[in-house]
């Protein structure tokens, strides 16, 4: 199975549980399991090759210019992790089916779980660090969903937020580190980076890259001082905890350190950062774990401790330590997942996870007790279980580690940590299952059904088998993974009995000390409770609160609800940047001779400037401002016409008409005057801002117009190919419908969306209480006695066919002469709007049978289908074709697919303009306003005849 498919399967499969939950919880669980099983089978099929030492890869260039390629590869380390993720995932899926209650939305749960699983598989299979980062962030996001799955619990929400904040910010740091790393090597492909150890370690950027990447790994793997998020993430349902904190999420950081081990490790900096952090985390986690009464909290801190142990081993930088780390990753995943599930079973059965309320459960839950016993003994490092093997290796490696010249420090602390580890592991057995049977359990516990005990049992069997026959079961995969980590052939041959080594003595000391410590648990707890301890959550909340407070103070000042203030800030800022650009650049000499100034443009200029300034001067009288801005628009379109842009002139003048109608309609409902509100100081400030902006924009365009292009323009191409390639003489139209047809396609869609937004707002407003207000509205000024003047009605009806004919003419000649779909659409819209205006809304609506939504949709569809037609000829979307026909007795006539596309534009523009205006006009409807007979001259009218008869 292709690696692409293995990585994609969980993502694709995430749809199934969400849909199949309707068929029941079993269907959802089964589909999730099937997807995971399929991916696992695909992985296992690659296993023989990988175990032989080969690397399977699948490559796909995605954004090669950015160095971002969808390259996947599968080596020993990837196989080990992917196997853990999918294998334990399968057990978790089965367990969760029986763990979650009826009230929990199970489809959602499995979908989140698969998303998370896919992200994890993606991390371990990525052969490109940018791709890896994408998956890395995906794990943060999907784990947020999983941890906060019980949305009704505040702890769940807070825990999820904290996990996201910590791991997400770590991920941001890691992005920086990875980018530096890619910059040093010159490639973002992992397989290339891993070949360049010397280059990376010699680089002055090695230290920042290492620190940033480690922050990412440490936050994810809950290393001190970022360890605090993990216990709070325990608010998640137990299957999530078991999955995230045994095999997946927290192991991602370890995976990354192992992955980067060949190029990043081996330096002093690496040793002191990684080994020290790991050591501190291991000891701290183990000590805290002993004093937690919540089963899951105990396991959470024990996880922190074990993650620290593995980090420390990776930090030692020796091959043997790396092998031990890999082995412990496997062992920890097996016994910790089993223990989490076990804690879930106890919680389920006894309705409490508080150790103080438990004890003596071995009588009631013998099966659960057996499973917990084996797993916890393995966690304690008791032979013959697998935890013993790797813990022994850890102690052995610790004896070789010399920290700042002191050879005893690391071994002593390792034993100290191991001692606490023994103590809390034994406590899990002794204080929960041993002791006398109690009579005050919240509910009477009993062993669960097979659905709950079978998944952990599978893992416990593995714990025992790896412990007894490590070389049969674990050696091949651990060797392959360790080879991948170290980049060399490693020798791995674990055995329960090594002879009387220092590690054995240390182990014995730890076990005896741990047992003694547990015996004195009560006394130790007293000491612990009297120790001053910083509460991580309080510190975290204080930091978050301070950050929120600061940004709120800052944004409140800028963002106080005054839109005018935002605009002013934005303008001043933009002007400052523009001034900086101007002051730091150079201005070349003027190279174009200005065009001569004649009387006509001067006249136009006077009208334009006069009307514009009048708009400002008289803007308080809104109707007057509208009339004046109409003048401005007209002069602008004349300017286009004068300066060789006939298409623009036509477009501007027709848009002008509909815009003014629109604004008039709106003004009908709004106050007719703008009161004087701003203080003189504020007005002078605004004048200053606008004058500076106007000077800047005017100066910029003057400088542009008086200079030639710096680089040759692409317009020459369009001029040269317009007829040859597009079959049209009007280059502007050919650009719109052919060269840049895709832009135009997008634009008509935008226009259609704008119209539909307007329609939606109308619907919403008319559905609210505003409607009553509109119905009872009194006009601002007395209405005209004759709302549908005869002259106007007759004139517009005569004009209608003429206007439509003009539209058709403009449309058809558009390819070769000024015109085209945009302009024709506007003209046709004006023709219809005239009827609304003259004959009234009701009359026009009655006679308008095509819904405007449909016209917009048809337009977009016609344009799309025309564009797709090119596919059938094996050409890209929107490639146009044209030919000429010569009908008898007629002129030579061109047939071009571009004309069909333009028809789509025409329809979309027509529909959009009319829908916008019609929606707005619906506000005006009042009872009695509708005149069924706007033209009161029809003698055949029923009531007209009646009136006559009545006389």
């Amino acid at each position, binding site marked *: 199975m292709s690696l692409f498919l293995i990585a994609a399967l969980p993502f694709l499969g995430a749809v199934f549980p969400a849909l199949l939950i309707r068929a029941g919880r079993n269907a959802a669980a089964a589909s999730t399991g099937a997807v995971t099983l399929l991916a696992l089978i695909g992985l296992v099929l690659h296993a023989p090759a990988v175990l032989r030492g080969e690397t399977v890869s699948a490559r796909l260039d995605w954004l090669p210019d950015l160095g971002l390629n969808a390259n996947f590869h599968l080596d020993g380390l990837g196989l080990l992790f992917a196997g853990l993720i999918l294998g334990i995932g399968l057990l978790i899926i089965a367990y969760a089916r029986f763990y979650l209650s009826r009230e929990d939305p199970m489809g959602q749960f499995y979908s989140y779980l698969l998303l998370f699983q896919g992200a994890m598989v993606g991390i371990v299979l990525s052969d490109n660090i940018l791709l890896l980062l994408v998956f890395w962030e995906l794990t943060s996001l999907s784990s947020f969903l999983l941890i906060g799955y019980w949305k009704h619990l505040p702890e769940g929400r807070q825990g999820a937020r904290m996990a996201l904040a910590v791991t997400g910010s770590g991920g941001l740091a890691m992005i920086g580190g990875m980018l530096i790393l890619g910059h040093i090597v010159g490639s973002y492909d992992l397989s290339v980076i891993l070949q360049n150890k010397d280059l990376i370690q010699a680089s002055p950027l090695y230290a920042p890259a290492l620190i940033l990447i480690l922050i990412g790994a440490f936050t994810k793997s809950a290393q001190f001082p970022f360890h605090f998020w993990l216990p709070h993430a325990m608010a998640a349902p137990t299957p999530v905890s078991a999955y995230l904190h045994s095999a997946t999420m927290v192991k991602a950081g370890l995976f990354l350190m192992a992955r980067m081990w060949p190029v990043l490790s081996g330096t002093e900096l690496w040793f002191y950062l990684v080994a020290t952090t790991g050591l501190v985390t291991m000891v701290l986690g183990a000590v805290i774990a002993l004093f937690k009464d919540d089963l899951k909290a105990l396991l959470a801190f024990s996880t922190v401790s074990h993650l620290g142990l593995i980090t420390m081993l990776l930090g030692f930088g020796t091959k043997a330590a790396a092998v031990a780390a890999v082995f412990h990753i496997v062992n920890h995943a097996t016994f910790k997942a089993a223990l989490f599930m076990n804690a879930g079973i106890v919680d389920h059965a006894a309705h409490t996870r508080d150790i103080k309320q438990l004890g003596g459960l071995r009588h009631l839950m013998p099966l659960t007790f057996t499973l917990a016993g084996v797993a916890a003994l393995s966690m304690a490092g008791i032979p013959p279980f697998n935890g013993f093997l790797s813990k022994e290796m850890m102690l052995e490696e610790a004896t070789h580690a010399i920290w700042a010249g002191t050879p005893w420090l690391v071994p002593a602390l390792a034993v100290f940590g191991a001692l606490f580890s023994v103590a809390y592991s034994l406590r899990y057995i002794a204080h929960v299952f041993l002791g006398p049977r109690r009579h005050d359990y919240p509910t009477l516990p009993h062993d669960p059904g097979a659905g709950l005990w079978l998944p952990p049992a599978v893992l416990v069997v593995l714990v025992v088998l790896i412990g007894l026959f490590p070389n049969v079961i674990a050696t091949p995969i651990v060797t392959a993974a360790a080879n991948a980590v170290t980049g060399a052939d490693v020798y791995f041959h674990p055995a329960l009995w090594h002879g009387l080594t220092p590690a054995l003595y240390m182990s014995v000391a730890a076990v005896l000390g741990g047992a003694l410590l547990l015996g004195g648990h009560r006394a130790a707890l007293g000491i612990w409770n009297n120790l001053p301890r910083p509460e991580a959550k309080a510190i975290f909340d204080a930091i978050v609160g301070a950050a929120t407070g600061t940004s709120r103070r800052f944004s409140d000042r800028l963002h106080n609800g005054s839109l005018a203030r935002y605009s002013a800030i934005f303008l001043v800022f933009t002007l400052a940047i523009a001034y900086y650009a101007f002051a730091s650049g150079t201005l070349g000499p003027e190279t174009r001779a200005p065009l001569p100034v004649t009387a006509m443009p*001067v006249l136009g200029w006077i009208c334009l400037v006069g009307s514009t300034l009048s708009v400002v001067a008289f803007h308080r009288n809104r109707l007057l401002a509208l009339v004046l801005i109409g003048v401005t628009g007209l002069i602008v379109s004349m300017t286009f016409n004068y300066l060789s842009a006939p298409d623009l002139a036509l477009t501007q003048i027709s848009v002008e008409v509909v815009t003014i109608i629109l604004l008039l309609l709106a003004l009908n409902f709004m106050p007719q005057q703008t009161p004087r509100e701003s203080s003189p100081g504020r007005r002078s400030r605004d004048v200053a801002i606008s004058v500076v902006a106007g000077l800047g924009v*005017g100066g910029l365009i003057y400088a542009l117009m008086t200079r030639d292009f710096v680089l040759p323009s692409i*317009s020459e191409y*369009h001029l040269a190919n317009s007829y040859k390639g597009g079959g049209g003489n009007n280059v502007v139209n050919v650009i719109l419908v052919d060269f*840049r047809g895709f832009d135009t396609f997008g634009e008509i869609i935008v226009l259609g969306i704008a119209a539909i937004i307007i329609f939606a707002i109308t619907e919403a407003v008319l559905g609210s209480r505003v409607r009553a207000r509109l119905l009872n509205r009194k006009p601002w000024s007395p209405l005209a006695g004759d709302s549908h003047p005869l002259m106007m009605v007759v004139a517009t009806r005569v004009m209608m066919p003429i206007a439509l004919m003009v539209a058709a003419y403009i449309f058809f000649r558009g390819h070769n002469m000024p015109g085209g779909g945009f302009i024709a659409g506007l003209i046709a819209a004006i023709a219809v709007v005239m009827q609304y205006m003259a004959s009234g809304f009701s009359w026009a609506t009655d006679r308008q049978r095509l819904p405007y939504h449909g016209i917009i949709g048809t337009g977009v569809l016609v344009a799309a289908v025309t564009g797709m037609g090119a596919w059938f000829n094996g050409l890209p979307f929107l490639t146009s074709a044209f030919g000429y026909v010569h009908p008898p007795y007629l002129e030579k006539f061109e047939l071009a697919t571009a004309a069909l596309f333009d028809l789509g534009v025409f329809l979309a523009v027509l529909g959009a303009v009319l829908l*916008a205006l019609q929606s707005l006009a619906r506000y005006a409807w009042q009872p009695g306003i509708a005149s069924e007979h706007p033209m009161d001259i029809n003698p055949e009218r029923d009531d007209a005849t009646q009136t006559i008869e009545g006389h």
Partner: protein
Amino acid sequence: MEILLASAVGILTASGIYLILRQRTFPVIIGLSLLSYAVNLFLFATGRLALNQPPILSKYADASYTDPLPQALVLTAIVISFGMTAVVVMIALSSYLAARDDHIDMAGNGGDDA
């Protein structure tokens, strides 16, 4: 000629921005329209000015043409600015009808604090 157009663009921009900084919706909409004129003229003028050279291919081989590309961009910009104006008008009108207030600043913050 260039100086006329540049000054016109400048005056349109300044007037548009002044109106955009007002406190009622209607002047802001009018200001947006003025600013649209300014921006469209600006974009159009980046193709440099030419008289009597429309980009319509003629049968004379030595004919010269003005730059068609900014024209094509401005043409769609004009239509899109209509769509934008229409949406803004609709939002302004509906909020006025619903709240009986056409201040653009949020309630309680209107007035002279900017």
